[in-house]
């Protein structure tokens, strides 16, 4: 056999060069703002791979829908129709309430809450690494998606868009370790900050004093104070409270309403227009 590393630099030199390159990349990605743009180009470049990877799942769901029995389809159809009827009933009432609310707001002299635009997007890929909870959506700037836009599903808030390509975008989920948001305890109206822990089924409430009024099972909704998420959407339910007086703060964990590990479709929200020009701080 021929001697192996005759051509090119030695192994150690290669490792040294590569280490420097990687460290440079990490610094650029973590500590500068240009990385968002770079990331979205890269995501677009590798999106064929993601398409190929999601192909088996698409084919399987397609096939299972093909072979679903007539009977079951009919039953499902009936169920859905019933649900639609029930929901349009509540919707009529909601419209009435909204009108009333807006009138009352006018009387008080405060701005009425505008109903934002919505768009359904399909999840192309779920980033599988435990250190990064992100999803790729099949909508991009061509559909009007912008950065920092909130997304929800039928149960609660999922996360926010962090980088946008022309036909796809990436969203950070609320359970990611780098994500934090402002919430309100629905029962008492106290504002709290929630951080992701890198686990699918829990988030953590930080900096709560021991004297705070909080109970197991309390619903947490968005407060609208962070300027990203519109007010009043359900996020999580308090699942565990640990009163340890030796700790400076109360240890509270909450379980998100949205089933973050099995998302297929999400709803993108466009909040009120004036909120968009003050977003941008991280």
């Amino acid at each position, binding site marked *: 056999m*021929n001697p*192996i*590393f005759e051509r090119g630099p030695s*192994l150690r030199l*290669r*490792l040294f060069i*590569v*280490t420097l*390159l*990687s*460290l*440079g*990349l*990490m610094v*650029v*990605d*973590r500590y500068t703002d240009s*990385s968002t743009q*770079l*990331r979205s180009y*890269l*995501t677009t*470049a*590798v999106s064929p*791979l*993601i398409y*190929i*990877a*999601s192909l*088996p*799942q698409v084919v399987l769901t397609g096939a299972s829908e093909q072979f679903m029995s007539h009977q079951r389809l009919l039953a499902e159809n009936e169920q859905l129709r019933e649900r639609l009827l029930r929901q349009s009933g509540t919707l009529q009432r909601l419209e009435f309430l909204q009108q009333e609310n807006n009138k009352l707001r006018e009387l008080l002299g405060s701005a009425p809450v505008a109903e934002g635009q919505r768009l359904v997007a399909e999840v192309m*890929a*779920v*980033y*599988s*690494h*435990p*250190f*990064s909870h*992100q999803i790729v959506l099949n909508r991009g700037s061509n559909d009007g998606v912008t950065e920092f836009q909130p997304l929800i599903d039928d149960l609660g808030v999922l996360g926010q868009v962090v980088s946008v390509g022309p036909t796809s975008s*990436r969203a950070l989920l609320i359970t990611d*370790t*780098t994500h934090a948001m402002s919430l309100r305890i629905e029962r008492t109206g106290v504002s709290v900050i929630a951080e992701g*822990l*890198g*686990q*699918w089924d829990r988030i953590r409430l930080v900096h709560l004093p021991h004297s705070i009024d909080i109970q197991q099972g309390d619903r947490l909704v968005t407060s609208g104070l962070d300027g990203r998420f519109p007010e009043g959407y359900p996020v999580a339910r308090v699942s565990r409270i640990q009163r340890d007086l030796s700790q400076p703060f109360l240890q509270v964990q909450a379980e998100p309403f949205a089933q973050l*590990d*099995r998302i297929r479709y999400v709803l993108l929200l466009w909040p009120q227009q004036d909120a968009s020009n003050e977003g941008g701080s991280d």
Partner: protein
Amino acid sequence: MQQTKGIGVIYLSLVLALVLMVMPMPAMVKLFRPDWALLVLLYWVLALPFRANIGTAFVIGFLVDVLVGTVLGVNALAYSVVAFVMAANHQKIRNFSVLQQSLLIGLLLAFYHLMIFWLSHFLTGVYFLPDYLWPVLTGTLVWPWLFWLLRRVRRQFKVR
């Protein structure tokens, strides 16, 4: 002068491994997913260190960063370091039995995962869970089969 042959097979297998790494799966199964790209890369480094070594590892690691969503450069660095260990000792490791090789791969995988954790902890402040180490075990168990499969592929296509 050695003739480069079947270099496409190497890249094809690496791309397939990358696809396997991002294939959507239930969260429960995902926890146990072996690091396919790293395993395939390690095989090629072991078998043909003059075709695939640190440069290849860097590129594949970088692609994993982009695909998986970790901070850019974390996987690139970890892949390169593991590939360096493999390339520097490839003649010893080749002579090991399959069992010994598997154990060694397990060690390398554990090293890889700890390195990823340290870097991510330093960069984004993640918390450690013992669950993160499941891929080490599955990777160790998968190695003998992958080794056998890729050796067959290499001989079939006469990759050199």
